[in-house]
């Protein structure tokens, strides 16, 4: 687990802002993370914390009034923010692919799934229709769709949600990308299908040697599949470390709160579930200083004025909090 690998995707100080009529929404405000080759990074956070905008920024798909105002996105050393749109089209689907939350609506309803996978291939590679069709069938087999030779001619409405997500994965991986961004890939699916899809992704990852950026709000999911986790809160990464490390000794009070608010099997029935008080701040009016201070049990005066920076509190363990002393929090709560 601890061997180091070269980075596949590096995001440095990325800022994506939306210039709306009501003011500037800092949807992503200076985030950094590293996705190593062949590894999985979980990007975790509540709804609206900027996870999806980060993913779209990496894809270069932020549309006005949103703009990437600062930062670097390095794909194997190539800064994607320097690449013109025509070049980005060659990157999308070919080197970085993305799958979305809603498999029910992510496929074009008027074409057969085979047709759509073939399109994904033919956007990037000059192959004949027959060859593309053979490869589409091959991809369907890879994502374990039964009888791919006949199902290739089916329309999306003839398939179930899990099947459609498999088709989406087949489309995304048809050109063998180096990075797959999975934006809440299983949220719309029921639990058994969720497990199947994650298993399939893990299998394909080792098969195709790709890196996965997994965006989710499901802590159980990231715990199972990711190697590293970046926790986002209010447009920033507040903690970034290895999965084991994060679950064993969370450094940031927000992460701590998240972990203790998950109910566990065998928990005494009468024990109240820990909750984080308050609400996610409105991105138009972020609190001053540390954005978490209104909800933080440890907040001091300093937290209200001074914004903490992401610092290495332990080797390989980064967190943004003033209250960390000697790599851990002065919290008396039990770690889960």
């Amino acid at each position, binding site marked *: 687990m601890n061997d180091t690998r070269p980075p596949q995707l590096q995001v440095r100080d990325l800022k994506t802002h939306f210039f709306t009529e009501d003011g500037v929404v800092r949807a992503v405000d200076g985030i950094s993370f590293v996705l190593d080759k062949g590894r999985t990074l979980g990007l975790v956070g509540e709804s609206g914390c900027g996870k999806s905008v980060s993913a779209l920024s990496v894809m270069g798909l932020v549309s006005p009034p949103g703009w990437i105002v600062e930062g670097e996105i390095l794909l194997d050393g190539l800064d994607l923010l320097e690449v013109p749109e025509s070049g980005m*089209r060659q990157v*999308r*689907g070919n080197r970085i692919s993305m799958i979305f939350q809603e498999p029910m609506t992510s496929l074009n*309803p*008027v074409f057969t799934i085979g047709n759509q996978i073939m*399109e994904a291939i033919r*956007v990037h590679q000059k192959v004949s229709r027959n060859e593309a069709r053979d490869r589409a069938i091959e991809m369907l087999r890879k994502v374990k769709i039964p009888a791919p030779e*006949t199902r290739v001619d089916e329309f999306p409405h003839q398939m179930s949600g899990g099947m459609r997500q498999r088709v*989406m994965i087949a489309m995304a991986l048809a050109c063998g990308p180096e990075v797959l961004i999975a934006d809440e890939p299983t949220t719309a699916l029921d639990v058994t299908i969720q497990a199947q899809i994650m298993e399939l992704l893990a299998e394909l990852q080792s098969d195709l040697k790709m890196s996965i950026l997994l965006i989710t709000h499901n802590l159980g999911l990231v715990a199972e599949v990711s190697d590293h986790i970046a926790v986002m809160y209010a447009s920033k990464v507040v903690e970034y470390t290895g999965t084991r490390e994060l679950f064993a000794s969370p450094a940031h009070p927000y992460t701590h709160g998240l972990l203790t608010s998950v109910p566990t099997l065998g928990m005494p029935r009468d024990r109240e579930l820990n909750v984080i008080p308050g609400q996610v701040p409105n991105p138009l009016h972020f609190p001053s200083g540390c954005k978490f201070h209104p909800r933080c049990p440890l907040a001091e005066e300093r937290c209200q004025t001074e914004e903490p920076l992401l610092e290495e509190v332990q080797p390989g363990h980064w967190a943004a909090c003033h209250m960390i002393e000697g790599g851990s929090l002065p919290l008396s709560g039990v770690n889960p």
Partner: protein
Amino acid sequence: MIPLHDWMPGWGHWRLGQRLKGTVVAGLFALFVLLGLWHARTIWGSLLHTASKLSGAEVVYTSRDLDFLVTSLFVVAMLVLIVLFSGLSCRRRRQAEHLAKVPEGQWSIVWRQFQRNPLAVAGVVIILALYLVAFLCPFIAPYDPIDQGDRVRERLLPPSAQHLLGTDRFARDVFSRVVYGSRISLLVGFLSVGIAVTIGTIVGAMAGFYGGWIESLIMRFVDMMLSFPVLILIITVIALWREQSIWIIITVIGLMSWMGVARLVRAQFLVLKEREFCQAARALGAGNSRLIFRHLLPNSLTPIIISATLRVGNTILLEAALSYLGLGVQPPTASWGNIVYDTKGNLFTEWWMPLSAGLAIVITVVGYNLLGDGLRDALDPRLRE
């Protein structure tokens, strides 16, 4: 190899249990065989005449000769096409029977839905019959529609076996004129709507896809065009032209009626471009043109087809109105509108003349509206059980 009986129109389908299809195919084939035999001499003569003209002989070749040639070729082509259709359709059916599950495409679902609506089927039958009449004009009309008879003795004759709808004040056979008039109406309806839909789709797609100031500019222009009374605008444009021909009328009507389609397509694009499959397509490397032509346009096709069909009726009415005003198709060419115009003086004495042309207009427009309504119901997934 396709067995011989599959090539026999109707027989193959009957053997495969598709009785309705078989009967229709056989009926159509019989119709064209009878037509071919009935007019065998005319067809043969027309072909010979054309051949001698082509070989450089000094013969008179009029537009009416061309008319006969086209119709003769149409009858022959239809005979061949029906036979081909029977053979190939039976083969496809047999191949499908080998598969465990016959994959049902979108259009076959729509067709099944469509068939449940008797009014819609009536609309299709009316429209197809009218197109058949338009193609077969010279074989159906007993006289040349612009040929004036004996203007003393054959003027304003009442309906009889020789002249089914009598003759007008120029001693022309009214039935023949009404039959030929179908060509004008169907041509105007089809081509004008084609122009309107093409322009409207391009303009609406641009507005909906690019948004921003392009959209504002385009949509304000659409608003401006819509604020003119169409008929008056068209009359003005036509009046500015020196000569009037059917092609100018078609173009002008087309250029003046695309705005509705543009609005419709823009609205569709605005909704569709926010759908996840568009973002997914972008994430897989699709550019703007691919997004428009592969994803947005095919998904907007349903409302475009429906509105085009419903629009044809309107356009036919518009042409009839223009011709009635004397600004449309010019005499002696027959169009339903100018037949009504020509015969309006006889309204109280020879009422069957304006009535027949008027009824033809009504039937055509109703046919198109029934077809459009049926299509809308069949294509709307929410109305499916």
